[in-house]
């Protein structure tokens, strides 16, 4: 049997009578760039919240690095080496950019100086070094997304969950972020990434799972997914030309 880094096993998530995620299973291999796509309300972010420990699952198991993690708190999941970003960015607004990233770095060190060192390194990687002393709240959306990325990278994760990291960005900014993601993978991390932007997804992902109304609609390599009639219908609506 192949070792999967992350294994989602028949996961369901209900909110009262509302089924947000229904019996989803898939596996993510090490060093993969894995895309999770689907129209609005498909359950992508809900699934992310379950994986990262923010929501308890209704049933099913989430196995990360051979451990069942669906009963763990978000901070415990982070310490196992899984870090997430947020679709609606959550900068720690009154702290500086550097301090934001240091807080990520503190998950692997107790020393302030060491945290600062790691933080500078990550800021360099995402190209935010010039903004180190600016308050995080004052950045533009594109820079805030980069900050999110730098902050989770500072926790030295084995796996990154990126929730619409390119959402709201222009083409140049998207390209920069995709380059950073490739670089991060080259260094050995696995990436699961929710995205609306089909172009970004097909450009970068090795494997894609498509969700629709909380169910798994399809999975496969990018070129298969883009030709899958079910996916085209879910995305564009039957017969319409978008």
């Amino acid at each position, binding site marked *: 049997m192949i070792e999967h880094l992350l294994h989602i096993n028949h996961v369901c998530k209900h909110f009262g009578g509302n089924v947000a995620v229904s019996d989803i299973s898939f596996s993510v291999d090490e060093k993969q760039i894995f895309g999770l796509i689907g129209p609005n309300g498909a359950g992508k972010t809900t699934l992310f919240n379950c994986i990262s420990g923010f929501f308890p699952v209704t049933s099913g198991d989430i196995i990360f690095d051979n451990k069942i993690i669906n009963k763990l708190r978000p901070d415990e999941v982070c310490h196992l080496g899984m870090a*997430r970003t947020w679709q609606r960015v959550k900068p720690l607004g009154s702290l500086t950019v550097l301090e934001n990233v240091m807080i990520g770095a503190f998950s692997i060190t107790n020393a302030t100086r060491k945290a600062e060192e790691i933080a500078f390194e990550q800021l360099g990687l995402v190209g935010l070094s010039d903004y180190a002393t600016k308050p995080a709240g004052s950045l533009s959306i594109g820079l805030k997304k980069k900050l999110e990325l730098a902050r989770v990278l500072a926790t030295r994760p084995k796996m990154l969950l990126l929730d619409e990291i390119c959402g709201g960005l222009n083409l140049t900014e998207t390209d920069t972020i995709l380059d950073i993601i490739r670089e991060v993978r080259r260094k050995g991390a696995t990436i699961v990434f929710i995205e609306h932007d089909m172009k970004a997804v097909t450009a970068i992902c090795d494997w894609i799972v498509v969700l629709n109304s909380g169910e798994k609609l399809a999975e496969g390599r990018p070129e298969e997914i883009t030709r899958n009639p079910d996916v085209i219908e879910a995305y564009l609506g039957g017969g319409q030309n978008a």
Partner: protein
Amino acid sequence: MKQVTIIAIIAGIAAVLPLVTGESPYFIGVMISVLMMAALSSAWNILGGYAGQYSFGHAAYFGAGAYTTLIMISTFNFNPLGGMVAGIIVACIIALVTGSIVFRLRGHYFGLASIAVAEIVRLSALNFEFTGGAQGILLSDVSLWGVDLNSKLPFYYGMLLVLVVSLGITLYMRSSKTGFYLQAIREDQDAAASLGINLSFYKNKALLISAALTSVLGSLYAVYIRFIDTSAVLDLRLSIEIILTAIIGGVGTLWGPAVGAVLLVPLAEVLRSNVIGEALVKHGIVSEKSGLGIFFKDNLAHAHVLVYGIITVLCILYLPKGILGLFRRTK
């Protein structure tokens, strides 16, 4: 200049102040109030200012220190220091129970729950027999290692010491992992959790430090005044005064709470004793018989809470980041 140096210089000045001014009991009395409020507010600031958890129930920890100390001294013949240690233990137990319940709540709900817990403590003290109920506890003469505790000076230095310790802890924390984590919790709890911060552990840590310091101040106060009842040490008013001092000085800053206390406590004193109103009449600026004179001489003294309230509202309206917020450089 380094903040440590500034703390040392100010503490040094405060330490020699009584020698310079002579032992005027009134002056020392007001200074003790200033130092106590500065220390209380600084202790609150660790939890409220840095971790962003606005506790409206800090009187509970102050009262726990005060009551435990006096009960230990009068019933079990502890010396005051032993009573103080017992007070810290009781305050920490209350803090842990409180923390485990109210830290599940966020934002305003946390504030409301903290009031509820403090009210439970107050009503318990009011109705139990060992706390003296509504009569409170009166302490006769007390001494420690032959030092006469009827004098005010030991308490002046005691309060000063706790203030310096509070400022020192705040200063150390600001540059340490705990301080960064508390600020992350203040800014965004979900983001903090996703970055590996155990929310309840760090909130409880801040609460314990804050509660322990607050209870020490309660112990000092109780032995200093030698009479306590629930309205003196467990009242919601005290909790609110602590918060106001921090807000007006500058929440989440090292010096804000101390600055707030230095301004507000003497202000309240001046208004209460109606020094200004009486001086106006005495120097003939306003005639004693005129309506204005009667207002200044009699009514204003009763209205000191009103004036204090108006000043507070103006501060909040025009200095939302506190007095220190004015001087903080925009980054």
